[in-house]
């Protein structure tokens, strides 16, 4: 129930921010009556109303009866830091990619995630990581012919 209250507040805050940003949309004479900012303003108001409704419903419901949060919920909440950690590998990949290039970046990502997810620390990890990096490079760059960053530090090696 506390969660719904927080969600409602987040929705309200989001609606406010979005409304403020929508105020910065340029007003063009090429526009129509609704205008470029028309829908955004409506959406912001709708979201704010939904946020208030959510909070209101929660408050009313919590007065009526106390509902215990399920054990499943708690377990999921506890995983939040872990999940964010997982995402941080992705962030590191995005930051490193322009420097180390696609093959090494991908190998680091695969290896890092494998260790993070509890792979036994054996020779399999580096082999899978490097193999994976080369395999994806072969599929994307060689087979499909799409561009992936070469990496400013290792340019010329591949």
């Amino acid at each position, binding site marked *: 129930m506390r969660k719904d209250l927080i969600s409602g507040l987040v*929705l309200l805050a989001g609606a406010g921010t979005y409304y403020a940003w929508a105020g910065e949309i340029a007003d063009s004479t090429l526009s129509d009556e609704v205008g470029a900012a028309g829908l955004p303003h409506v959406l912001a108001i709708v979201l704010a109303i939904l946020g208030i409704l959510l909070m209101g419903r929660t408050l009313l419901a919590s007065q009526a009866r106390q509902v215990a949060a399920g054990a499943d919920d708690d377990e999921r909440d506890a995983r939040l830091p872990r999940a964010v950690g997982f995402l941080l590998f992705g962030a590191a990949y995005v930051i490193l990619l322009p420097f180390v290039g696609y093959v090494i970046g991908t190998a680091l990502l695969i290896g890092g995630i494998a260790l993070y997810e509890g792979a036994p620390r054996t020779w399999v990890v580096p082999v899978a990581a490097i193999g994976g990096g080369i395999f994806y490079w072969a599929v994307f760059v060689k087979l499909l012919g*799409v561009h992936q960053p070469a990496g400013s530090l290792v340019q010329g090696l591949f």
Partner: protein
Amino acid sequence: MTTIMDIIRLLTETPLIFVSIAGLTWGILGGALPGISASITMALVLPFTYTMDPAQAIALLACVYIGAEYGGSIPAILIRTPGTNSSAATVIDGYELNRQGRAGEALGISLMSGVIGSLFGLAMLIMLTEPLSWLALAFTPASYFGLGILGLSVIASMSGGSLIKGLAAATVGLMIATVGTDPISGVTRFTFDIPDLLGGVEPVLVMVGLFALTELMSQSGSTNTTQLNQKIKIKLPSLAVMNRLKRSQFIGCVLGLFEGLTPGGGGSIAAFMSYNEAKRWSKTPHLFGKGSEEGVAAPEAANNTVASTALIPLLSFGIPSSNSTAVLLGGLLMHGLIPGPRLFEQSAQVIDSIYVGSFIAIIAQIGVGIIILPACIWLVNRPRPYRAGFIFALILSGIFTLNNSLFDLGIALALGLVGFLMRIAGFPVLPMILGVVLGHMVESSYRRSLVLSGGDHMIFLQDPIAVALLSIALIFVVFSLSREVRDARKTRIEEARS
């Protein structure tokens, strides 16, 4: 005119059969890689077709399109990642079936439903191009608005429990869709002077973030290894199963036909709507969302139908109704072929090889599917630490190719976090995705209609198609709401009893 002799000649004299199967296989590969949409898969092969014989080049592109529309369902079922926009609806029940250890069945159903959809679409293309092309003309901006609202009305039944939360998610989706260049005045909105945002946020980034990354994040650290016990065999549906699925496949085919004809959607709207309709007309609607076979069959029949029927407005008007057909148009132009009524007279050979090539590809799809699908199932059943790493790398590599942009990767990662928080807080993600997919169409057609009418809302009631679509939408919403209230009351009574 096409004669049997022409067809036999095309089959024997030229290596059309190889071209078709190669195109199909390439399409399945590209479609199955997340982020690499059907249009990108086609665009990647386009430069190579430049030196080919025109008839074969166009047939190749058409076969790539068929393969890519099908291929998108493979990662949707196996790793909760829609390979293409139009396979997002397949994720819902396809992945659920996979979690229940029925990946082989789900893939079999999607394969056969895809084949049925493609065959239906091809039949329509061959027989009814002329009459159907005039249907495309009947769509005015007001009709498109009706279509968009009809699509959004699905939200009411996709909110899974809390309507307020569903609507809030949809609103956020619509907000994401407003980012970019305003469709009417051309001013920039919420772009913060970042050129990457001028074209808006790609729906596939939202899908990958909310579906795939969220799933990877919530699996992180879990010790659940049930997926390792799967049979890696692909199981084609038996006749009895096919018989059970025929209603949902029919719904998918019909909606796919319409979406292919009308510019703008590219399959995702038909997929979502046929999912919803299949649920409404199903004998077992309670299974939807919990691993329904029909929930896989309907959207897959729909998006595969689109791959053929989208060629109708392209070939008869030169109007690409999706990004994929825009690439095909480029292919035609590169070979000096101008689509339009005269193409059918002047370049009959090109038309014939599209028909014959597509047919070969559709039939070959079964064989290619049976060969590659077990390998795919095997791949996703590797030990979890490695599987997580490889899927993560695959997703990030795929969406990088979308715009060559690290910025896009950042957006997808951020949406992954949003999706995870939504899961914790009990918000459904489907309405948000629907909002992103439909927001642009709803807004631009609404405003375009009002420009036309000088601000008079009566325009929506004067257009017969708009009236029909809006009334259906209204019935949907009332129907879903009454069911929602009924269900809520039922649970309250049950709670009170216990």
